[in-house]
Protein backbone atom coordinates (compact mmCIF):
# COMPACT_ATOMS: atom_id res chain seq x y z
CA UNK A 1 0.00 0.00 0.00
CA UNK A 2 1.58 3.21 -1.18
CA UNK A 3 1.19 6.09 1.21
CA UNK A 4 2.95 8.89 2.98
CA UNK A 5 1.91 9.87 6.47
CA UNK A 6 3.45 12.77 8.32
CA UNK A 7 2.48 13.74 11.82
CA UNK A 8 3.35 17.09 13.38
CA UNK A 9 6.66 17.07 11.61
CA UNK A 10 9.11 19.92 11.85
CA UNK A 11 12.35 20.31 9.98
CA UNK A 12 15.00 22.44 11.67
CA UNK A 13 18.28 23.12 9.97
CA UNK A 14 21.21 23.69 12.25
CA UNK A 15 23.37 26.52 10.96
CA UNK A 16 26.94 25.79 11.82
CA UNK A 17 28.97 28.88 11.24
CA UNK A 18 32.70 28.45 10.90
CA UNK A 19 33.12 28.62 14.65
CA UNK A 20 30.63 26.13 15.89
CA UNK A 21 31.44 23.68 13.13
CA UNK A 22 35.02 23.34 14.26
CA UNK A 23 36.32 21.35 17.14
CA UNK A 24 38.20 24.37 18.39
CA UNK A 25 35.30 25.77 20.22
CA UNK A 26 34.31 22.51 21.82
CA UNK A 27 37.83 21.91 23.03
CA UNK A 28 38.90 25.41 23.94
CA UNK A 29 35.51 26.25 25.33
CA UNK A 30 35.87 23.61 28.00
CA UNK A 31 39.27 24.84 29.05
CA UNK A 32 38.45 28.48 29.18
CA UNK A 33 35.30 28.16 31.20
CA UNK A 34 31.92 29.51 30.27
CA UNK A 35 32.55 32.62 28.30
CA UNK A 36 30.36 32.14 25.31
CA UNK A 37 26.70 31.50 25.79
CA UNK A 38 26.39 30.26 22.26
CA UNK A 39 26.43 26.60 23.17
CA UNK A 40 23.31 26.14 21.10
CA UNK A 41 23.60 26.11 17.36
CA UNK A 42 21.16 28.51 15.69
CA UNK A 43 18.51 26.74 13.68
CA UNK A 44 16.29 27.65 10.80
CA UNK A 45 12.82 26.26 11.09
CA UNK A 46 12.17 25.30 7.51
CA UNK A 47 8.99 23.38 8.21
CA UNK A 48 6.76 23.71 11.18
CA UNK A 49 4.15 21.29 12.44
CA UNK A 50 3.28 19.59 9.19
CA UNK A 51 0.60 16.94 9.17
CA UNK A 52 -0.03 15.37 5.78
CA UNK A 53 -1.54 12.13 4.68
CA UNK A 54 -1.26 11.13 1.03
CA UNK A 55 -2.50 7.84 -0.34
CA UNK A 56 -2.36 5.91 -3.56
CA UNK A 57 -4.21 7.74 -6.29
CA UNK A 58 -3.71 11.18 -4.81
CA UNK A 59 -2.34 13.97 -7.00
CA UNK A 60 -1.23 16.77 -4.77
CA UNK A 61 0.06 20.14 -5.95
CA UNK A 62 2.29 22.27 -3.79
CA UNK A 63 2.00 26.02 -4.14
CA UNK A 64 3.59 28.88 -2.28
CA UNK A 65 6.10 31.67 -2.67
CA UNK A 66 9.84 31.14 -3.00
CA UNK A 67 11.24 29.99 0.29
CA UNK A 68 7.88 28.85 1.58
CA UNK A 69 9.20 25.34 2.15
CA UNK A 70 7.89 23.52 -0.91
CA UNK A 71 11.18 21.84 -1.78
CA UNK A 72 11.91 21.03 1.84
CA UNK A 73 8.49 19.47 2.18
CA UNK A 74 9.17 17.33 -0.89
CA UNK A 75 12.43 16.20 0.68
CA UNK A 76 10.61 15.40 3.89
CA UNK A 77 8.08 13.36 1.95
CA UNK A 78 10.82 11.51 0.10
CA UNK A 79 12.58 10.53 3.30
CA UNK A 80 15.73 12.52 2.61
CA UNK A 81 15.07 14.67 5.66
CA UNK A 82 13.70 12.84 8.61
CA UNK A 83 11.66 15.18 10.79
CA UNK A 84 13.53 16.71 13.71
CA UNK A 85 10.29 16.61 15.65
CA UNK A 86 7.21 14.61 14.89
CA UNK A 87 7.32 11.58 12.66
CA UNK A 88 6.94 10.42 9.11
CA UNK A 89 6.14 7.10 7.53
CA UNK A 90 6.73 6.44 3.87
CA UNK A 91 5.61 3.26 2.18
CA UNK A 92 6.48 2.64 -1.41
CA UNK A 93 9.35 3.20 -3.81
CA UNK A 94 10.09 6.89 -4.08
CA UNK A 95 11.28 8.52 -7.30
CA UNK A 96 12.25 12.06 -6.46
CA UNK A 97 12.76 14.40 -9.39
CA UNK A 98 13.97 17.61 -7.81
CA UNK A 99 16.71 18.56 -10.14
CA UNK A 100 16.88 17.33 -13.69
CA UNK A 101 20.65 17.64 -13.69
CA UNK A 102 21.49 15.61 -10.62
CA UNK A 103 23.65 12.61 -11.34
CA UNK A 104 24.38 13.76 -14.87
CA UNK A 105 27.99 13.50 -15.85
CA UNK A 106 29.40 15.98 -18.35
CA UNK A 107 32.07 13.73 -19.71
CA UNK A 108 30.15 10.60 -20.56
CA UNK A 109 27.78 9.99 -23.42
CA UNK A 110 24.06 10.49 -23.42
CA UNK A 111 23.46 6.73 -23.42
CA UNK A 112 25.62 6.23 -20.35
CA UNK A 113 23.86 9.09 -18.62
CA UNK A 114 20.52 7.45 -19.30
CA UNK A 115 21.78 4.34 -17.50
CA UNK A 116 23.17 6.22 -14.54
CA UNK A 117 20.16 8.41 -14.11
CA UNK A 118 17.99 5.30 -14.16
CA UNK A 119 20.11 3.62 -11.48
CA UNK A 120 19.75 6.72 -9.35
CA UNK A 121 16.00 6.52 -9.72
CA UNK A 122 16.03 3.01 -8.37
CA UNK A 123 15.91 1.05 -11.62
CA UNK A 124 18.19 -1.83 -12.42
CA UNK A 125 20.53 -1.96 -15.38
CA UNK A 126 18.36 -4.52 -17.14
CA UNK A 127 15.22 -2.46 -16.75
CA UNK A 128 16.99 0.54 -18.18
CA UNK A 129 18.35 -1.37 -21.17
CA UNK A 130 14.77 -2.13 -22.17
CA UNK A 131 13.89 1.54 -22.02
CA UNK A 132 16.86 3.01 -23.79
CA UNK A 133 15.32 2.88 -27.27
CA UNK A 134 12.10 4.43 -26.12
CA UNK A 135 14.01 7.24 -24.41
CA UNK A 136 16.20 7.80 -27.45
CA UNK A 137 13.06 8.06 -29.59
CA UNK A 138 11.43 10.53 -27.29
CA UNK A 139 14.41 12.83 -26.92
CA UNK A 140 14.97 12.99 -30.71
CA UNK A 141 18.65 13.44 -30.01
CA UNK A 142 19.73 10.82 -32.54
CA UNK A 143 23.48 10.44 -32.92
CA UNK A 144 24.06 13.03 -30.24
CA UNK A 145 23.35 10.34 -27.69
CA UNK A 146 26.79 8.88 -28.28
CA UNK A 147 28.45 12.26 -27.74
CA UNK A 148 29.62 13.41 -24.32
CA UNK A 149 27.05 15.42 -22.43
CA UNK A 150 29.17 18.56 -22.41
CA UNK A 151 28.45 19.05 -26.11
CA UNK A 152 24.73 19.36 -25.40
CA UNK A 153 22.80 22.59 -25.19
CA UNK A 154 20.70 23.32 -22.11
CA UNK A 155 17.54 22.35 -23.90
CA UNK A 156 19.02 19.08 -25.10
CA UNK A 157 20.00 18.22 -21.56
CA UNK A 158 16.51 18.86 -20.33
CA UNK A 159 15.19 16.62 -23.09
CA UNK A 160 17.48 13.81 -22.05
CA UNK A 161 16.67 14.18 -18.36
CA UNK A 162 12.95 14.39 -19.01
CA UNK A 163 13.15 11.35 -21.23
CA UNK A 164 14.68 9.25 -18.47
CA UNK A 165 12.55 10.60 -15.70
CA UNK A 166 9.32 10.01 -17.58
CA UNK A 167 10.27 6.46 -18.53
CA UNK A 168 10.27 4.99 -15.05
CA UNK A 169 7.43 3.38 -13.10
CA UNK A 170 7.49 4.94 -9.68
CA UNK A 171 5.16 4.19 -6.82
CA UNK A 172 5.63 7.62 -5.34
CA UNK A 173 6.54 10.42 -7.71
CA UNK A 174 7.78 13.67 -6.23
CA UNK A 175 8.30 16.43 -8.78
CA UNK A 176 9.85 19.79 -8.16
CA UNK A 177 9.43 22.67 -10.59
CA UNK A 178 12.04 23.47 -13.17
CA UNK A 179 10.65 21.68 -16.16
CA UNK A 180 11.11 24.33 -18.77
CA UNK A 181 13.79 25.44 -21.21
CA UNK A 182 12.52 23.30 -24.06
CA UNK A 183 10.81 24.48 -27.19
CA UNK A 184 7.04 24.51 -27.27
CA UNK A 185 6.61 21.57 -29.64
CA UNK A 186 8.72 19.41 -27.38
CA UNK A 187 6.94 20.74 -24.33
CA UNK A 188 3.65 19.42 -25.65
CA UNK A 189 5.21 16.06 -26.20
CA UNK A 190 6.77 16.16 -22.74
CA UNK A 191 3.49 17.11 -21.19
CA UNK A 192 1.80 14.08 -22.67
CA UNK A 193 4.50 11.84 -21.29
CA UNK A 194 4.36 13.55 -17.93
CA UNK A 195 0.61 13.06 -17.76
CA UNK A 196 1.15 9.46 -18.69
CA UNK A 197 3.81 9.02 -16.04
CA UNK A 198 1.62 10.56 -13.38
CA UNK A 199 -1.14 8.19 -14.37
CA UNK A 200 1.23 5.23 -14.00
CA UNK A 201 2.60 6.30 -10.66
CA UNK A 202 0.63 5.53 -7.56
CA UNK A 203 0.97 8.89 -5.96
CA UNK A 204 2.14 12.32 -7.00
CA UNK A 205 3.26 15.40 -5.15
CA UNK A 206 4.17 18.23 -7.51
CA UNK A 207 5.56 21.63 -6.58
CA UNK A 208 5.08 24.23 -9.28
CA UNK A 209 4.32 27.83 -10.07
CA UNK A 210 2.75 26.97 -13.39
CA UNK A 211 -1.01 26.88 -13.05
CA UNK A 212 -1.68 25.00 -16.24
CA UNK A 213 0.66 22.14 -15.32
CA UNK A 214 -0.86 21.97 -11.86
CA UNK A 215 -4.34 21.87 -13.29
CA UNK A 216 -3.35 19.15 -15.64
CA UNK A 217 -1.58 16.91 -13.14
CA UNK A 218 -3.13 17.50 -9.76
CA UNK A 219 -6.48 17.22 -8.09
CA UNK A 220 -5.79 18.52 -4.61
CA UNK A 221 -3.28 21.02 -3.30
CA UNK A 222 -1.35 22.28 -0.32
CA UNK A 223 -0.45 25.93 0.11
CA UNK A 224 2.81 26.43 1.93
CA UNK A 225 3.65 29.70 3.58
CA UNK A 226 6.77 30.35 5.66
CA UNK A 227 7.15 26.73 6.59
CA UNK A 228 3.58 26.30 7.67
CA UNK A 229 0.74 24.61 5.90
CA UNK A 230 -1.56 27.50 5.18
CA UNK A 231 -4.27 25.61 3.43
CA UNK A 232 -5.09 22.16 2.20
CA UNK A 233 -7.96 21.25 -0.06
CA UNK A 234 -9.05 20.83 -3.63
CA UNK A 235 -6.73 22.32 -6.20
CA UNK A 236 -9.24 24.88 -7.37
CA UNK A 237 -10.02 26.17 -3.87
CA UNK A 238 -6.38 26.39 -2.88
CA UNK A 239 -5.35 28.16 -6.07
CA UNK A 240 -8.24 30.56 -5.69
CA UNK A 241 -7.18 31.45 -2.19
CA UNK A 242 -3.50 31.61 -3.10
CA UNK A 243 -3.80 33.70 -6.24
CA UNK A 244 -6.87 35.58 -5.19
CA UNK A 245 -8.66 34.60 -8.40
CA UNK A 246 -10.19 31.57 -9.98
CA UNK A 247 -7.49 29.62 -11.83
CA UNK A 248 -9.95 28.74 -14.60
CA UNK A 249 -10.62 32.36 -15.45
CA UNK A 250 -7.70 32.95 -17.71
CA UNK A 251 -6.51 29.68 -19.08
CA UNK A 252 -6.44 29.44 -22.82
CA UNK A 253 -9.44 27.79 -24.43
CA UNK A 254 -7.31 25.05 -25.90
CA UNK A 255 -5.97 24.10 -22.48
CA UNK A 256 -9.48 24.15 -21.11
CA UNK A 257 -10.64 21.95 -23.92
CA UNK A 258 -7.83 19.50 -23.37
CA UNK A 259 -8.44 19.37 -19.67
CA UNK A 260 -12.15 19.09 -20.20
CA UNK A 261 -11.79 16.16 -22.51
CA UNK A 262 -9.10 14.29 -20.70
CA UNK A 263 -10.23 14.71 -17.19
CA UNK A 264 -13.12 16.79 -15.95
CA UNK A 265 -11.64 18.82 -13.14
CA UNK A 266 -12.83 17.11 -10.07
CA UNK A 267 -13.69 19.33 -7.15
CA UNK A 268 -13.28 16.40 -4.88
CA UNK A 269 -11.96 17.59 -1.56
CA UNK A 270 -8.39 16.66 -0.87
CA UNK A 271 -7.10 15.51 2.43
Amino acid sequence: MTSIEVWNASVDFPIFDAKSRSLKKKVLGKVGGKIGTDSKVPVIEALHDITVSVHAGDRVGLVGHNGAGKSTLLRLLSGIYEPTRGSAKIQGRVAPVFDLGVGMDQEISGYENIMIRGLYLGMTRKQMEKRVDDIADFTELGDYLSMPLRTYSTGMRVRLALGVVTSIDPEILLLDEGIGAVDSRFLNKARDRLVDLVRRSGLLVFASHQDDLLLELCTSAIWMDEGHMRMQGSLRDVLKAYKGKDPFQNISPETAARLGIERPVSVKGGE
Partner: protein
Amino acid sequence: MHATSTVDAADESAATAKPTPDRRSWERAFADLRDGFTQRELWSHLGWQDIKQRYRRSVLGPLWITLSMGVTALGLGLLYSQLFDASIGTFLPYITTGFIVWQFMLGSLTEGTNTFIANEGLIKHLPAPLSVYVLRTLWRQTILFAHNMIIYFIVVTIFWGSLTKSGYVLTDAGIPQPGLGWSALLAIPGFAMLALNAGWVILLLGIVSTRFRDIPQVITSLINLMFFMTPIVWTTDILKSKFGESAGWRDLWVVELNPLYHFLQIVRAPLIGNEQSWHHWVIVAGIAVVGWSLALVVLRNYRSRVSYWV
Protein backbone atom coordinates in the same frame (compact mmCIF):
# COMPACT_ATOMS: atom_id res chain seq x y z
CA MET B 1 13.72 2.92 -1.20
CA HIS B 2 11.63 1.48 1.53
CA ALA B 3 11.57 3.75 4.48
CA THR B 4 10.01 1.56 7.05
CA SER B 5 9.36 2.94 10.42
CA THR B 6 7.11 2.07 13.23
CA VAL B 7 5.07 5.00 14.26
CA ASP B 8 2.79 4.85 17.22
CA ALA B 9 2.41 8.58 17.42
CA ALA B 10 -1.04 8.49 15.94
CA ASP B 11 -2.24 10.43 18.92
CA GLU B 12 -1.88 13.99 17.87
CA SER B 13 0.33 15.10 20.72
CA ALA B 14 2.01 18.08 19.16
CA ALA B 15 4.28 18.56 22.12
CA THR B 16 6.67 15.75 21.34
CA ALA B 17 9.68 17.79 22.29
CA LYS B 18 12.04 14.84 22.21
CA PRO B 19 12.82 13.33 18.85
CA THR B 20 10.70 10.30 18.26
CA PRO B 21 12.57 7.14 19.14
CA ASP B 22 12.13 5.77 15.66
CA ARG B 23 14.79 8.04 14.20
CA ARG B 24 17.42 6.41 16.33
CA SER B 25 16.70 2.75 16.10
CA TRP B 26 19.00 -0.19 15.53
CA GLU B 27 16.45 -1.53 13.12
CA ARG B 28 16.88 1.41 10.80
CA ALA B 29 20.65 1.48 11.15
CA PHE B 30 20.83 -2.14 10.04
CA ALA B 31 18.25 -1.55 7.33
CA ASP B 32 20.55 1.17 6.02
CA LEU B 33 23.44 -1.27 5.73
CA ARG B 34 21.28 -3.99 4.22
CA ASP B 35 19.67 -1.70 1.65
CA GLY B 36 23.06 -0.27 0.82
CA PHE B 37 24.45 -3.68 0.00
CA THR B 38 21.50 -4.60 -2.19
CA GLN B 39 22.04 -1.50 -4.33
CA ARG B 40 25.24 -3.04 -5.58
CA GLU B 41 24.67 -1.92 -9.15
CA LEU B 42 24.55 1.69 -8.07
CA TRP B 43 27.61 1.85 -5.87
CA SER B 44 29.77 -0.39 -7.99
CA HIS B 45 28.92 1.76 -10.98
CA LEU B 46 29.64 4.96 -9.07
CA GLY B 47 32.94 3.59 -7.81
CA TRP B 48 34.06 2.77 -11.34
CA GLN B 49 32.78 6.06 -12.57
CA ASP B 50 35.01 7.87 -10.05
CA ILE B 51 38.06 6.12 -11.44
CA LYS B 52 37.15 6.68 -15.07
CA GLN B 53 36.35 10.30 -14.30
CA ARG B 54 39.79 10.87 -12.89
CA TYR B 55 41.54 9.66 -16.03
CA ARG B 56 39.03 10.86 -18.61
CA ARG B 57 40.59 11.82 -21.91
CA SER B 58 44.05 10.72 -20.91
CA VAL B 59 45.57 8.23 -23.30
CA LEU B 60 46.54 5.61 -20.72
CA GLY B 61 43.45 6.09 -18.56
CA PRO B 62 43.41 4.14 -15.30
CA LEU B 63 46.72 2.57 -16.31
CA TRP B 64 48.23 5.73 -14.88
CA ILE B 65 47.44 4.35 -11.43
CA THR B 66 49.56 1.32 -12.20
CA LEU B 67 52.25 3.32 -13.88
CA SER B 68 52.71 5.86 -11.10
CA MET B 69 52.83 3.07 -8.55
CA GLY B 70 55.50 1.39 -10.65
CA VAL B 71 57.63 4.51 -10.81
CA THR B 72 57.28 5.14 -7.08
CA ALA B 73 58.10 1.55 -6.20
CA LEU B 74 61.15 1.55 -8.41
CA GLY B 75 62.45 4.85 -7.04
CA LEU B 76 61.85 4.03 -3.39
CA GLY B 77 63.20 0.53 -3.80
CA LEU B 78 66.43 1.69 -5.43
CA LEU B 79 67.00 4.47 -2.92
CA TYR B 80 66.23 2.66 0.30
CA SER B 81 67.90 -0.60 -0.57
CA GLN B 82 71.09 1.47 -1.03
CA LEU B 83 70.53 3.43 2.18
CA PHE B 84 69.98 0.33 4.28
CA ASP B 85 72.49 -1.82 2.42
CA ALA B 86 69.75 -4.28 1.66
CA SER B 87 69.54 -6.71 -1.23
CA ILE B 88 67.39 -5.12 -3.89
CA GLY B 89 65.88 -8.47 -4.87
CA THR B 90 63.96 -8.67 -1.63
CA PHE B 91 63.87 -5.08 -0.46
CA LEU B 92 62.23 -3.65 -3.56
CA PRO B 93 59.32 -6.11 -3.36
CA TYR B 94 59.08 -5.32 0.36
CA ILE B 95 58.73 -1.60 -0.25
CA THR B 96 56.44 -2.04 -3.24
CA THR B 97 54.00 -4.28 -1.42
CA GLY B 98 54.08 -2.11 1.67
CA PHE B 99 53.41 0.97 -0.38
CA ILE B 100 50.49 -0.64 -2.22
CA VAL B 101 48.82 -1.62 1.04
CA TRP B 102 49.61 1.81 2.42
CA GLN B 103 47.87 3.48 -0.51
CA PHE B 104 44.71 1.56 0.31
CA MET B 105 44.82 2.59 3.97
CA LEU B 106 45.66 6.17 3.05
CA GLY B 107 42.77 6.36 0.61
CA SER B 108 40.30 4.87 3.06
CA LEU B 109 41.31 7.36 5.74
CA THR B 110 41.52 10.55 3.70
CA GLU B 111 38.71 9.88 1.25
CA GLY B 112 36.66 8.33 4.02
CA THR B 113 36.46 11.69 5.73
CA ASN B 114 35.02 13.16 2.54
CA THR B 115 32.57 10.38 1.80
CA PHE B 116 29.41 12.28 2.63
CA ILE B 117 30.75 15.78 2.04
CA ALA B 118 31.65 14.89 -1.53
CA ASN B 119 28.24 13.33 -2.14
CA GLU B 120 26.30 16.31 -0.86
CA GLY B 121 24.40 16.77 -4.11
CA LEU B 122 23.24 13.18 -4.22
CA ILE B 123 22.36 12.99 -0.55
CA LYS B 124 20.09 16.01 -0.89
CA HIS B 125 18.38 14.68 -3.98
CA LEU B 126 18.00 10.98 -3.40
CA PRO B 127 16.73 9.05 -0.42
CA ALA B 128 19.49 6.44 -0.65
CA PRO B 129 20.96 4.61 2.33
CA LEU B 130 24.16 6.16 3.67
CA SER B 131 26.01 2.91 3.21
CA VAL B 132 25.75 3.33 -0.57
CA TYR B 133 28.24 6.19 -0.35
CA VAL B 134 30.46 4.25 2.04
CA LEU B 135 30.52 1.33 -0.36
CA ARG B 136 31.20 3.68 -3.26
CA THR B 137 34.33 4.96 -1.53
CA LEU B 138 35.39 1.48 -0.44
CA TRP B 139 34.84 0.07 -3.92
CA ARG B 140 36.87 2.88 -5.47
CA GLN B 141 39.76 2.13 -3.12
CA THR B 142 39.50 -1.55 -3.93
CA ILE B 143 39.68 -0.86 -7.67
CA LEU B 144 42.72 1.34 -7.11
CA PHE B 145 44.27 -1.45 -5.05
CA ALA B 146 43.63 -3.94 -7.85
CA HIS B 147 45.35 -1.66 -10.35
CA ASN B 148 48.33 -1.33 -8.06
CA MET B 149 48.53 -5.08 -7.58
CA ILE B 150 49.60 -5.37 -11.22
CA ILE B 151 52.89 -3.84 -10.13
CA TYR B 152 53.12 -6.37 -7.33
CA PHE B 153 52.81 -9.25 -9.78
CA ILE B 154 55.39 -7.72 -12.10
CA VAL B 155 57.83 -7.21 -9.22
CA VAL B 156 57.32 -10.73 -7.91
CA THR B 157 57.91 -12.17 -11.36
CA ILE B 158 61.15 -10.24 -11.72
CA PHE B 159 62.47 -11.10 -8.27
CA TRP B 160 60.98 -14.58 -8.05
CA GLY B 161 64.37 -16.12 -7.42
CA SER B 162 65.32 -14.00 -4.43
CA LEU B 163 61.84 -14.06 -2.87
CA THR B 164 61.33 -17.81 -2.96
CA LYS B 165 64.72 -18.54 -1.43
CA SER B 166 64.00 -19.72 2.09
CA GLY B 167 65.88 -17.87 4.80
CA TYR B 168 66.38 -14.57 3.02
CA VAL B 169 66.81 -11.48 5.16
CA LEU B 170 65.40 -8.09 4.38
CA THR B 171 68.05 -5.96 6.02
CA ASP B 172 71.36 -6.85 7.63
CA ALA B 173 71.09 -9.12 10.66
CA GLY B 174 67.36 -9.39 10.23
CA ILE B 175 65.37 -12.49 11.04
CA PRO B 176 65.43 -15.10 8.29
CA GLN B 177 62.18 -15.13 6.30
CA PRO B 178 60.50 -18.35 5.19
CA GLY B 179 60.27 -17.24 1.55
CA LEU B 180 57.34 -17.02 -0.84
CA GLY B 181 55.09 -20.04 -1.04
CA TRP B 182 51.50 -21.15 -0.91
CA SER B 183 51.06 -19.25 2.32
CA ALA B 184 50.85 -16.18 0.10
CA LEU B 185 47.18 -17.03 -0.28
CA LEU B 186 46.69 -15.82 3.28
CA ALA B 187 46.85 -12.35 1.78
CA ILE B 188 43.31 -12.86 0.48
CA PRO B 189 41.65 -13.16 3.90
CA GLY B 190 44.13 -10.51 4.98
CA PHE B 191 42.82 -8.06 2.44
CA ALA B 192 39.22 -9.01 3.25
CA MET B 193 39.97 -8.13 6.86
CA LEU B 194 41.57 -4.87 5.81
CA ALA B 195 38.54 -3.97 3.68
CA LEU B 196 36.18 -4.87 6.51
CA ASN B 197 38.01 -2.44 8.73
CA ALA B 198 38.13 0.19 6.01
CA GLY B 199 34.33 -0.06 5.99
CA TRP B 200 33.87 1.14 9.53
CA VAL B 201 36.63 3.71 9.20
CA ILE B 202 34.92 5.30 6.18
CA LEU B 203 31.49 5.17 7.82
CA LEU B 204 32.65 6.60 11.13
CA LEU B 205 35.02 9.24 9.78
CA GLY B 206 32.50 10.18 7.13
CA ILE B 207 29.73 10.93 9.61
CA VAL B 208 31.97 12.67 12.11
CA SER B 209 33.68 14.80 9.44
CA THR B 210 30.34 15.91 8.06
CA ARG B 211 29.56 17.46 11.41
CA PHE B 212 33.06 18.61 12.32
CA ARG B 213 34.84 19.84 9.24
CA ASP B 214 38.21 19.96 11.00
CA ILE B 215 38.51 16.20 11.11
CA PRO B 216 39.63 15.85 7.46
CA GLN B 217 42.35 18.41 8.16
CA VAL B 218 43.46 16.55 11.28
CA ILE B 219 43.70 13.31 9.32
CA THR B 220 45.60 14.88 6.43
CA SER B 221 48.08 16.52 8.76
CA LEU B 222 48.79 13.30 10.66
CA ILE B 223 48.84 10.90 7.76
CA ASN B 224 52.26 11.90 6.44
CA LEU B 225 53.75 11.33 9.85
CA MET B 226 52.07 7.95 10.02
CA PHE B 227 53.68 6.96 6.74
CA PHE B 228 57.12 7.40 8.22
CA MET B 229 56.20 5.90 11.59
CA THR B 230 54.95 2.72 9.93
CA PRO B 231 57.58 0.24 8.75
CA ILE B 232 57.08 0.65 5.02
CA VAL B 233 60.40 2.05 3.82
CA TRP B 234 62.21 0.69 6.86
CA THR B 235 61.97 -2.67 8.60
CA THR B 236 61.34 -3.83 12.14
CA ASP B 237 64.63 -5.68 11.81
CA ILE B 238 66.42 -2.35 11.92
CA LEU B 239 64.50 -1.43 15.04
CA LYS B 240 65.28 -4.75 16.70
CA SER B 241 68.97 -4.53 15.95
CA LYS B 242 69.04 -1.30 17.96
CA PHE B 243 67.86 -3.14 21.06
CA GLY B 244 69.70 -6.39 20.57
CA GLU B 245 68.25 -9.86 20.85
CA SER B 246 66.26 -9.14 23.99
CA ALA B 247 64.02 -6.60 22.35
CA GLY B 248 60.50 -7.02 23.76
CA TRP B 249 57.32 -5.32 22.65
CA ARG B 250 58.11 -2.44 25.01
CA ASP B 251 61.11 -1.55 22.90
CA LEU B 252 59.06 -1.94 19.78
CA TRP B 253 56.17 0.21 20.94
CA VAL B 254 56.62 2.45 17.91
CA VAL B 255 55.33 -0.32 15.71
CA GLU B 256 53.31 -2.45 18.13
CA LEU B 257 51.10 0.45 19.21
CA ASN B 258 50.59 1.54 15.63
CA PRO B 259 47.39 -0.12 14.38
CA LEU B 260 48.37 0.52 10.77
CA TYR B 261 51.39 -1.75 11.23
CA HIS B 262 49.18 -4.72 12.07
CA PHE B 263 46.92 -4.10 9.09
CA LEU B 264 49.97 -3.79 6.89
CA GLN B 265 51.43 -7.05 8.15
CA ILE B 266 48.40 -9.26 7.55
CA VAL B 267 48.50 -8.37 3.85
CA ARG B 268 52.19 -7.71 3.20
CA ALA B 269 53.79 -10.56 5.08
CA PRO B 270 52.10 -13.36 3.10
CA LEU B 271 52.57 -11.53 -0.21
CA ILE B 272 56.36 -11.47 0.02
CA GLY B 273 56.86 -14.63 2.02
CA ASN B 274 57.69 -12.97 5.29
CA GLU B 275 57.28 -14.57 8.66
CA GLN B 276 53.68 -14.22 9.76
CA SER B 277 52.49 -13.73 13.26
CA TRP B 278 49.06 -14.59 14.63
CA HIS B 279 49.11 -11.63 16.98
CA HIS B 280 48.50 -9.25 14.09
CA TRP B 281 45.32 -11.12 13.26
CA VAL B 282 44.12 -10.97 16.85
CA ILE B 283 44.73 -7.24 17.07
CA VAL B 284 43.12 -6.54 13.71
CA ALA B 285 40.07 -8.65 14.55
CA GLY B 286 39.79 -6.81 17.86
CA ILE B 287 39.95 -3.47 16.10
CA ALA B 288 37.26 -4.64 13.67
CA VAL B 289 34.90 -5.55 16.51
CA VAL B 290 35.48 -2.34 18.46
CA GLY B 291 35.45 -0.16 15.37
CA TRP B 292 32.27 -1.60 13.91
CA SER B 293 30.51 -1.32 17.27
CA LEU B 294 31.49 2.31 17.47
CA ALA B 295 30.53 3.01 13.86
CA LEU B 296 27.16 1.29 14.33
CA VAL B 297 26.38 3.37 17.40
CA VAL B 298 27.24 6.52 15.47
CA LEU B 299 25.21 5.31 12.49
CA ARG B 300 22.23 4.61 14.69
CA ASN B 301 22.35 7.99 16.38
CA TYR B 302 23.33 10.30 13.57
CA ARG B 303 22.25 8.54 10.38
CA SER B 304 19.25 10.80 9.96
CA ARG B 305 21.29 13.92 10.70
CA VAL B 306 23.78 13.53 7.88
CA SER B 307 21.43 15.00 5.27
CA TYR B 308 21.02 18.03 7.52
CA TRP B 309 24.74 18.44 8.05
CA VAL B 310 26.14 18.11 4.54
